[in-house]
């Protein structure tokens, strides 16, 4: 059978977790359906992670150039398009990350290969991939098939495949020259800016009292802050609170904020979008209070309370002040 390509994602000289997750899943599919696993690495010169990645694939196809040190959508798209048209892989995986969301659709438009995004599982039925996705913010799952094509593109949701041991493979390394006709990229990198630093370090707290959209109004934040103080905990939040400018970004838990590891995570009015849940995988005990009994947060919480959060907050205050 053909190849499975995995597009290696890295930042500041380090391989991102999504890469190992994709290599793990691709390895499983390769074993089951006798495909070959190819890791595609676009990077600056002398990146140390090549030695780490190559043995996790049958071969690593490497392009090294200073212009590839940081992700560049234009260069990635054009190089990968050429590579895909040369090798015609059955399946190409990229992360459903900020960069992958720029790359995947561009590659699909350029190669004509169909794309399914943000997939949480990949199966093969009748020689075609079939993917599982989540829709309506994780409340419903969908099973999606592709129009027949020579090859298929899938972007993988971070955290969907937790790699145990990634088996060793041949690890042949092929260094390719940059295509001669590569156009000059239009978008150009300037710098990285850290957005998560601030007065409070939520990643160090043992008890996080965390608030989400269910809090309803900015005026209610003070009340939850007081509760957190009374309990000796730290206030954190989900994305909608930061989007509304109700709390600074350094309070935000989740993929675009911080990953946290409190002993107890007490979530009020947080529905549990995957981007949020990804930030609490290392939490000890998760207690969620939400009036929507179908909120996805209850699928990951240890304890759940289905009630208006303010009923619970008021009762907690009464008990604690008594």
């Amino acid at each position, binding site marked *: 059978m053909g190849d499975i390509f995995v597009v290696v994602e890295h930042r500041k000289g380090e391989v991102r977790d999504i890469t190992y997750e994709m290599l793990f899943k691709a390895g499983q599919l390769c074993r089951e359906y006798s495909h070959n696993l190819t890791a595609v690495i676009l990077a600056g010169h002398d990146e140390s992670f090549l030695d780490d990645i190559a043995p996790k694939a049958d071969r690593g196809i490497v392009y090294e150039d200073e212009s590839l040190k940081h992700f560049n959508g234009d260069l990635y798209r054009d190089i990968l398009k050429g590579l895909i048209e040369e090798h015609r892989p059955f399946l190409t995986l990229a992360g459903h990350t900020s960069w992958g969301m720029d790359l995947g659709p561009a590659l699909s438009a350029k190669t004509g290969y169909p794309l399914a*995004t943000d997939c949480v599982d990949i199966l093969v039925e009748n020689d075609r991939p079939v993917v599982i996705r989540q*829709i309506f913010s994780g409340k419903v799952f969908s099973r999606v098939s592709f129009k027949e094509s020579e090859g298929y593109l899938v972007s993988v949701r971070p955290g969907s495949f937790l790699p145990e041991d990634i088996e060793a493979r041949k690890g042949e390394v092929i260094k390719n020259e940059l295509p001669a006709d590569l156009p000059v990229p239009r978008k150009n990198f300037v710098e990285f800016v850290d957005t998560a630093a601030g007065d409070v370090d939520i990643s160090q707290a043992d008890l996080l009292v965390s608030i989400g959209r269910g809090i309803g109004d900015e005026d209610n934040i003070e009340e939850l802050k007081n509760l957190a103080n009374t309990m000796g905990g730290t206030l954190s939040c989900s994305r909608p609170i930061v989007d509304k*400018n109700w709390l600074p970004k350094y309070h935000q838990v989740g993929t675009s904020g911080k990953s946290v590891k409190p*002993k107890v995570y007490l979530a009020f009015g947080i529905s549990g979008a995957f981007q949020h849940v990804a930030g609490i995988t290392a939490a000890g005990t998760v207690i969620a209070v939400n009036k929507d009994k179908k909120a996805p947060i209850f699928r990951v*919480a240890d304890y759940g309370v*289905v009630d208006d959060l303010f009923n619970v907050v008021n009762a*907690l205050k*009464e008990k604690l002040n008594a």
Partner: protein
Amino acid sequence: MNIVVCVKRVPLTQEVDLEIDGTGKDVKKDALAYVVNDWDNYAIEEAVLLQEKFGGTATAITIGTEDDEEVLRRALAVGADRAIRIDPGDLELDGFVISKLLAGVIKDLEYDLVLTGVQADDDNCGMVGIMLAEHLGLSHAAVVTGVEPEGDEATIKVELEGGMDEVSKIPFPALLSIQTGINEPRYVSIMGIRKAGKKELKVLEVADLNLTEDDLTPRTVVEEVFLPPETEGAEIIEGDASTVAEEIIRILTEKGVMV
């Protein structure tokens, strides 16, 4: 600066029990309330902010039925200058076909910038914007949290994972998929609604767009949708608020986190 902004009307599904419909390929939608997609709401605000600062026009586009014009009227009410609805008839839509329909309209407009939301709250695909950019031959970036135009380029911020932004420069014309939190979307005013009624809202048919059969053929097919298995999940703490509070305090004390 002329800006095109693509918007979608989506069902509101928070705090709603969703049920699968008879086809097994979608959820029952008759009883759901509809709103403008959250990401698109930020994209509209960004378009209006840029248009207010740099002049030019802001055009809002949607694909859908007459009911979906609600999101166009809303965009007009908060400051867009004109609106276009593409009526897809009974066409099967996926991200690819949607991007082709939008490209079919936008290619004939004058623009410096096309904005979309990062993704839609219903199908959570996040692919239309960048595909559209490729069809139109535009430079592009996804998950954008800042746009500062200067001359014929813009300095933009892309939100990365792990509390980090990537700053880069991108030339016009460009397409940016806009992330929530980039601005503070304004509310619709009575005055805005009055003005919106006088603005142009054009309706186009698929036949007007000069697209090929391949352009109109979906590349992905939803085979079935299903509710997540209920087997696993939280142990629900039952009882009135007072009982619940006692149990939470017991857990916090047991875990040794409460002083």
